[in-house]
């Protein structure tokens, strides 16, 4: 049978106590901060949603639902569906993924896009955050009325001086979002349609 001498026992006991106390403190901090962290994340998302959704008087986060693999936030004005928002990820940015919040009218035209997370080069690729006129060039466009490529690739969207990869990735991701909406529009509108729409859908279903 193995025997521990006094010194070994002291070492085990010391490390055990340090780890146990640290674990208790971490657990307490987690309990204490869990709700504020969730609130801060909701607040951050709320600000982003307000920038891509049209005027509405519902709570898009409270009514969010997952349709076809995307968590979609609906905006309603007096129960009528006014806009939809969801986040897409462009995996092919210049340095890592670019997260983009898409704001769409129910007819499939863009309201606004907003980059929520990126690691692009400051001063070059980060024009996708700072260059408002470039961001505005997406407004009101649908899948078919504009060529969804940067100008260098024969499309209609500007690239930035010294940065082509970043806007190319964003344009591609936004186009993908519009294609996703076209493919799943029926399911999405059925899910978020206002009460009248739902009644109509039920009627048609009969």
């Amino acid at each position, binding site marked *: 049978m193995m025997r521990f001498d006094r010194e070994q026992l002291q070492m085990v006991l*010391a*490390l055990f106590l340090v*780890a146990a106390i640290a674990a208790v403190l971490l657990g307490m901090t987690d309990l204490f*901060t869990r709700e*504020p*962290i969730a609130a*801060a994340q909701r607040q951050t998302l709320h600000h982003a949603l307000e920038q891509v959704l049209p005027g509405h008087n519902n709570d898009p986060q409270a009514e969010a639902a997952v349709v076809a693999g995307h968590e979609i936030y609906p905006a309603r004005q007096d129960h009528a569906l006014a806009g939809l928002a969801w986040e897409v990820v462009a995996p092919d940015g210049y340095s890592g993924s670019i997260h983009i919040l898409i704001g769409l009218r129910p007819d499939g035209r863009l309201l606004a896009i907003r980059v929520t*997370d990126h690691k692009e080069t*400051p*001063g070059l690729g980060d024009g996708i955050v700072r260059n408002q006129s470039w961001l505005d060039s997406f407004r009101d466009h649908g899948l078919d009325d504009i060529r969804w490529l940067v100008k260098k690739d024969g499309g209609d969207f500007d690239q930035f001086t010294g940065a082509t990869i970043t806007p190319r990735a964003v344009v591609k991701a936004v186009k993908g979002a519009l294609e996703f909406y076209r493919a799943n529009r029926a399911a999405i509108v059925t899910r978020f349609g206002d009460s009248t729409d739902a009644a109509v859908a039920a009627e048609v279903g009969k």
Partner: protein
Amino acid sequence: MNRQALFVDGFWHNNTIFAQLLGMCPLLGVTTSAENGFWMGVATLLVLLGSNLVVSLVRGVIPKNVRIPAYITIIAAFVTIIGMLMDAWMHQMYLVLGLFIPLIVVNCAILGRAEAFASKNSVADSVVDAVAVGLGFTFALILLGGVRELLGQGELFGFSVFGDSYPDVLMFILPPGAFIALGFILAGVNWINRRLAARAAARAASGDAAVAVEVG
């Protein structure tokens, strides 16, 4: 060493950045603006304060052979706690500093102070040391962040200094600018230190002369 000398030593003569060149990863990574540098420095200061305090409290209790894993656990716990608190109440800054907050664990300056100072000194001295070293580190981060923000964007703490016509010198925001600005700052610090040393030597020499006159 008295407390005042201890403080000056931690803040200036043994400054983590200027003298020891430790903690380069957060220094170069987050200092694209003075504000980022400030909050990274504050987070590091709080971790250092916690770890120095606890390590000096348990000195003599932790067996020598397992002291390093014990210190790392203590430091990691403080880093995680500070990270959660920032996530909860300074969410935007937490998002900006991102990965560099958990990486405070591997800032060798913090383990260095635990091992070299807090494990051998009283609680009060360890706290003074932590505050001095932490403020010195914060000062270096604000200085480098301020220089890069000023030259790179013409702003300081987000306020325009050079006006809208200033042509942003992008290089200072990019990683090479961090190294170049740090090089000039280190040169400046060395120049100041040499001036201080020369003045001290001159004072000592004149003191000797006075003694010599008196003896004469």
